[in-house]
């Protein structure tokens, strides 16, 4: 039985589009450690199609020397929620099919460790609504955009979360970790 751990880069107003706004901020190694902490204990990745297609070419080319997360991203089994085959290939990937809560639940049940999710807004919104997210790790950038795709869009299922983590980095990013109740 694995837990689903979601990692998102978000603006202060909750926008999670392709986060080009992160480029304006230097990367704090402590933040890298925190992201590593989210990955640790995870033995697989669960990704939406668009994020998979964005990640595959970027991560495939990266080595452990360039990014300590590269072996985890490239070598771990990856499950892709998509109704058709993605436009790109990536090692150790399996297309699961379109989103279905029961399918995700059975993936969780069979997993021998946590499942790491990054980006994948459509998938994460659906899993939050279905109560499938065990940990939500938000890396909040000191930016507000006013408009754009949000992690919690209008009509998100109301609920309460427990705060697990609150850590600030030298680049102004704050890691807020939550466990939905």
């Amino acid at each position: 039985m694995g837990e689903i751990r979601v990692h998102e880069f978000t603006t202060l107003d909750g926008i999670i589009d392709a986060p080009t706004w992160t480029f304006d901020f230097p990367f704090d190694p402590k933040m890298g450690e925190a992201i590593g902490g989210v990955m640790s204990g995870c033995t697989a990745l669960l990704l939406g199609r668009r994020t998979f297609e964005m990640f595959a070419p970027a991560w495939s080319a990266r080595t452990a020397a360039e990014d300590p997360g590269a072996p985890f991203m490239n070598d771990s089994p990856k499950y892709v929620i998509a109704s058709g085959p993605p436009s790109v290939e990536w090692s150790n990937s399996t297309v699961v099919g379109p989103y279905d809560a029961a399918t995700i639940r059975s993936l969780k049940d069979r997993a021998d460790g946590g499942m790491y999710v990054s980006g994948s807004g459509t998938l994460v919104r659906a899993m939050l609504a279905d109560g499938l997210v065990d940990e939500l790790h938000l890396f909040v950038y000191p930016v507000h955009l006013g408009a754009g795709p949000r992690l919690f869009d209008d009509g998100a299922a109301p609920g309460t979360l427990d705060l697990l983590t609150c850590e600030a980095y030298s680049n102004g990013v704050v890691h807020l970790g939550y466990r939905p109740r």
Partner: protein
Amino acid sequence: MRKIVLWMSLSLDGFIEGPNREIDWHRVDDALALHFNDELRDKGAFLDGRVTYELMAGFWPTADADPVASPATVEFARIWRDMPKIVYSRTLRDAGWNTTIVREIVPEDVVALKAAPGGDLVLGGADLSNAFMRLGLVDELQLYIHPVVIGSGKRLFQSPEATLDLRLVEARPFANGVVLLRYQTSGQA
């Protein structure tokens, strides 16, 4: 020069109130209420729009008369009554409790207010806050992120054209799961 501090509680999904102005999702325990008092006691004034002002004026003047009111509530009732308050409203006729009614936001007047002696100025209310942000009159954001998703309502950041450059100065968790995020804006007037 004293600062204008935008002071707001937000749900994790970014709302400052529900569709019918609900704020019953706020998670304020004694520790957080005492923190609010510590932060607000020495401020120079509260700046609100009419709606927020009337909500406050409908509760705080007599909140400490309730025999079961907590010590934090009793203290805040006194803070609120004594604090100089400015309410921005075109329609409000009169207001008690040390309140001045101002009809329009005039940037020069706000700058003069900042130059006057005293503590920092606490800005509240969604529409008033957005008006101040659009005019570049906000120096600091003091945001309390409550660990709650409410799904709909009014958002704090409403206009893409009024974005501020922000610098994180504090991130502080409270035991009940609320997080204080404090940012300075770069363009301090």
